[in-house]
């Protein structure tokens, strides 16, 4: 199996496991799931270093969403009386 296929299989497998585990823990916050997807994506990409035909749109989108989620959490802590 070549590196790109292994990367895609790992990404799909880890995303599925993350959803199953978080669902089993009765997690209902969508941002937790998305943050896990972002972490899995960046870790898998760093390990497998797959070739990309274009600029990494998925990584950029996930980074923006992850930053937004973290910013909201920090804001929540700071604003909380």
């Amino acid at each position, binding site marked *: 199996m*070549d590196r*790109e296929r292994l*990367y*895609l299989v790992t*990404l*799909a497998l880890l*995303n*599925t496991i*993350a*959803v199953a585990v*978080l*669902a089993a823990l009765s*997690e*209902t*916050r*969508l941002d937790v*799931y*998305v943050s896990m*997807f972002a972490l899995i*994506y960046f870790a898998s990409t760093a390990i497998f*270093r*797959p*070739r*990309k*035909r*274009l*600029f*990494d*749109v*998925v990584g950029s989108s*996930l980074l923006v969403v992850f930053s937004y989620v973290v910013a909201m959490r920090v804001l929540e802590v700071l604003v909380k009386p």
Partner: protein
Amino acid sequence: MADENVALGSCVVAFGAVLSLTSYLIIGSVPLTAMGIGLIVVGAAWALTPSHPLPREVVGALVRSSCSNIEALLEALGATKRAVYIPLRGGKKVVAYIPIKGSGNLTVEEIAENEGKVIVNRGGSFGVLVSPPTASLRNPHPIEEGLDVQSVLEHALVDSEVAASVKFVVEGNDFVVEIKKPRIDVDHPRFKLVMGSLPSSIAAQAIALATSKPTQIVSEKRNRDRLIVHVRALNWTERDFT
């Protein structure tokens, strides 16, 4: 027509979008919505992954055949001196200058002026300019502008699947490059004598491109599955490189 990775990846993205929207708006299930988002991520990553137009074996065979032609040329010319890898002004290509006769008469800069020619016959020096075999030196999708030696070496050797990993240290004007598990090489003695082994030749080209300086392989040593190569960065005004 789009290739199969784009088609299949788009199908997964579309299915993920429908699943997440339906789950969120109609069913109201967060895990299913997350599953849909996960599918969008995997589908988009799939669509962005290029399929292999040529199998690795075919690429290897093409590179070996290119080396055979250079070997024949070197044999015919009786070349024995080390080649100098010269980055061309556009910064996209590296050529190899193989000195045949006369030494110390031409600077590397004067040799580079013969871009586009095959034979360099000037000032009592005679040599040939050849395009050395390489898979790909420059990342077509660089993350950041500018070139650094490590990223060019990794793209040229690791991403192109010539070797498993590469690292280097700088010692004065020399770059000591450690190439682990080289996968493609050739058994042509004249080619190895003049151009270096195939992974070393690619490393010298990568350093020339990244530093915009001419380079020359000084020595190489094989140690089990590792190849240690000393590559010297030359000055453009250097004459005594032979």
